[in-house]
């Protein structure tokens, strides 16, 4: 398979390059010059030295793009089939089936698409254009996509650099909640454009989706009704919580304990983990709870705040926008964590923990509980087969402060729109084609293609019930790939892309061990999801103030919160903490958010 992909993709390029060496040199020189100039320009805006090379990489792209069409158009005969200029079988079939008329264009159009490369793909492909799905799309639509993959871990920096240097990609995928200033700022920065008219005009499939599920439109628009993104849609999911607390059930059983529900239960269970040596190695090396930390983040420790219907950040209590740290209960949360930390119930280095460290601690039977995605259940159960055959992990309910409380998941991911989505930038010259390209992804054909791959792909078969299901290629891959790695080589089934997610795929992908079904059930049943903060948008003249207020206050909050939890400063500082946040403008921030929430609810 890999070989075939390489062949399709690699050979024509090679031929072309060989024949066109004469023109390549000037193009390269031009690109070099562009890089030199661009990196020069960007230097004062960014003192961090790493930034310069980042800009260079980002701005090298357009130079390369402009060089490419000349190369292809000058010699169209060099690679007829593979380059997809003259729409082969797939395209015609589709137009007969009643979708949009395919191919979308017969012109030679190449769009640049800024999209973080999912780590699940890196084992098999270096670039999304090697993924069968995108090759098939190119064949069907006639539009070539050239991907710009930012370096892993610095996605937002690289996007910000591209934006500030003015070299925007045509299309851009982002988790837009993390984008400072949200949709409003994205429109202002030019990385997004208002898609309302283009979509109404050219995107019948997406319009149909809006009619069927109006929330999709509401959540992808600003208050003014400008549509900003092509989202990934989870409308009819059977599971809602993608992540939650989970725990070593075999340890619980060994110590004769029940899965905890209240915070007091949690305390008892974690203390037992700490003192009664459940991993049986004779050492008191257990870390009862090990959250993922990370620089400048609230860390997963704030997930415990959901017991008091709080979080580290903004959330929604009915019609009210609530900034959690300002609520009186937040103090109880911090005090509780402080006690637990002092008793050694929480990983002493939680702030420095990254995902891999937590995985290791869980996998080696040192950590007893964590906050994870459900998919981690299967990963761990697979590891336990060799390391600890008795090991069982399974979800536990979101904690409640006292008996009879309602567990709350304050940031469920599998909600209709979780703000991952693609925008069309201001510099995109082919808005019509781009909109049609995205619209195709929401058609019935696009839906199947995006979730199950092209017809005849080896990951999918049609079962007796006439429904698609995963084959052994995916469930027990002959090359030793994990299921997601195997799927992602063929289609974005397991990763982000603009489409409607097929819940059947999620179930088949995620639910391998019986514990996973139980986990999903435990996390979802009786859980309150109403606290999740919607994607509000701000007015253009207030957006920069809101962003900088939020950033400053959040940075301060994290610092103080962690210091109090780790016992570096006393709880007597708590009043100063609140006063300082208010001094920094926390009340004003809440007002801005309240009116933004009001506008959202009025949509």
């Amino acid at each position, binding site marked *: 398979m890999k070989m075939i992909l390489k062949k399709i993709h690699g050979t024509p390029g090679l031929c072309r390059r060989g024949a066109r060496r004469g023109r390549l040199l000037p193009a390269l020189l031009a690109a070099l010059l562009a890089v030199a100039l661009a990196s020069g320009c960007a*230097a*004062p805006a*960014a003192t961090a030295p790493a930034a310069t090379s980042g800009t260079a990489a980002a701005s090298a792209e357009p130079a390369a793009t402009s060089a490419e069409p000349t190369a292809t158009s000058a010699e169209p005969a060099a690679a007829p089939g593979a380059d997809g200029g003259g729409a082969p079988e797939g395209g015609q079939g589709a137009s007969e089936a009643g979708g949009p008329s395919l191919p979308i264009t017969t012109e030679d159009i190449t769009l640049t698409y800024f999209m973080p490369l999912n780590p699940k793909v890196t084992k098999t492909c270096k670039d999304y254009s090697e993924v069968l799905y995108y090759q098939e799309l190119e064949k069907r639509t006639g539009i070539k996509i050239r991907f710009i993959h930012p370096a892993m871990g610095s996605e937002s920096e690289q996007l910000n650099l591209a934006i500030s240097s*003015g070299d925007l990609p045509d299309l851009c995928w982002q988790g837009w909640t993390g984008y400072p200033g949200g949709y409003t700022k994205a429109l202002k920065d030019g990385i997004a454009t208002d898609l309302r008219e283009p979509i109404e005009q050219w995107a019948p499939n997406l319009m149909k989706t809006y009619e069927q599920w109006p929330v999709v439109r509401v959540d992808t628009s600003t208050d003014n009704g400008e549509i900003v993104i092509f989202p990934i849609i989870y409308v009819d999911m059977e599971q809602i919580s993608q992540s939650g607390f989970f725990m070593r059930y075999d340890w619980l059983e060994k110590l004769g304990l029940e899965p905890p529900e209240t915070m007091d239960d949690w305390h008892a269970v974690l203390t037992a983990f700490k003192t009664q040596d459940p991993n049986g190695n004779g050492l008191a090396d257990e870390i009862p709870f090990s959250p993922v930390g990370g620089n*400048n983040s609230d860390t997963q420790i704030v997930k415990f705040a959901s017991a008091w219907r709080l979080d580290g950040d903004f959330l929604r209590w009915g019609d009210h926008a609530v900034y959690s740290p300002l609520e009186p209960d937040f103090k109880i949360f911090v005090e509780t964590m402080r006690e637990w930390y002092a008793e050694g119930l929480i990983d002493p280095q939680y702030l420095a923990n990254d995902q891999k460290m937590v995985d290791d601690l869980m996998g080696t039977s040192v950590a007893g509980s964590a906050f994870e995605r459900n998919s981690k259940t299967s990963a761990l159960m697979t590891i336990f087969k060799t390391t600890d055959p008795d090991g069982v992990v399974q979800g536990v309910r979101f904690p409640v402060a006292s008996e009879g409380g309602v567990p709350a998941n304050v940031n469920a991911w599998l909600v209709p729109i979780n703000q991952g989505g693609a925008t069309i930038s201001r510099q995109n010259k082919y808005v019509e084609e781009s909109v049609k390209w995205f619209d195709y992804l929401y058609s019935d054909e696009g839906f199947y293609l995006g979730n199950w791959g092209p017809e005849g792909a080896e990951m999918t078969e049609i079962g007796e019930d006439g429904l698609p299901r995963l084959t052994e290629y995916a469930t027990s891959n002959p090359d030793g790939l994990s299921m997601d790695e195997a799927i992602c080589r063929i289609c974005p089934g397991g990763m982000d892309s603009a489409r409607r997610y097929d819940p059947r795929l999620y179930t088949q992908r995620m639910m391998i061990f019986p514990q996973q079904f139980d986990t999903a059930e435990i996390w979802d049943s009786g859980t309150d999801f109403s606290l999740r903060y919607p994607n509000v948008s701000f007015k253009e003249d207030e957006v920069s103030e809101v962003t900088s207020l939020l950033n400053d206050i959040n940075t301060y909050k994290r610092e103080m919160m962690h210091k109090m939890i*780790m016992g570096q400063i006393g709880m007597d500082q708590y009043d100063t903490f609140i006063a300082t946040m208010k001094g920094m403008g926390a009340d004003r921030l809440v007002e801005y958010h309240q009116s933004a929430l009001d506008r959202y609810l009025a949509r």
Partner: protein
Amino acid sequence: MAKSMVAKSAALGGIGIGGGAPSPGGALAGYLGRLGKNMRAYYQLYLLIIPVVAYYLVFHYWPMYGAQIAFKDFSPGEGIWGSPWAGLKHFRTYFGSYYFWRLIRNTLLLNVYNLLYGFPAPIILALLINEVRSRGYKRAVQTITYIPHFISLIVICGLLKDMLNANGLINYLLNAAFGREGVAYLLDPRYFRTIYVASGIWQQIGWGSIIYLAAITSIDQELYEAASIDGARRLRKLIHITIPSILPTIIIMLIMRMGQMMNVGAEKVMLLYNSATYETADVISTFVYRKGLLEMDYSYSAAVGLLNSIVNFALVASSNSISKRFSETSLW
């Protein structure tokens, strides 16, 4: 950094033209006339200097055009010219900000400690190496002390994180020797400066000593012989010959170092700090990075950076003139 480079480039530029035009002063036209004549006569030399001048123009002067966003409300969508002027708004915000004093304090303190401990370390190493008589031992010491310089910073910081971990090597040793409880050193703001400065010395001591060793080699051996005849021992020779002979080098290095007083490389701090240690670890460059690249507050971060460069420039200029007055050694 940018400013000190600019200062250097100005010095170089001066040499480029001043070397050709002999007499300063006089009317501008006269100067230009002479310059033109000079250029025609020695055009090969002027051709040779073009790449250097171009380098500074393109990479150090042209970017200053963008520094104007410090006085604007820059929005990438509107471009540098199109964005509205904001006056000194961002500077005022910075001065009034909660973080202002902390950033200044951290940046200065990290540098002061670095200067106090980090600056003399390579000099002392060079002097010690110079006194070693066994060639093999000398080479071995030099190689071992150079090695950390060639290890990528990210690897160094990875090593530090592992070693300073609560279950890491250092805690293990302390526990074995004194029975001390494990401490997560990188999570405690009290230890950050020590870790930063000490690891910096370890990294750079060997590499930094090269320049002093070179200076020592160029000392006239007759001085030592004369001193021996006068009955001077090693320590005397060290104090009265070696150190005074390399003093000009030390002073030049010190002046250049002064220009960095308000600068701390962002990378290393960024790789080692976390929310819990911001109190001692957050410095101007990391703040600028977070503001500009993560939070996209370009104008504000440009204002902070610009202010920092101005202070750096002032520091270089004043340390240079002080040195000129007292020791006749100066950069320009």
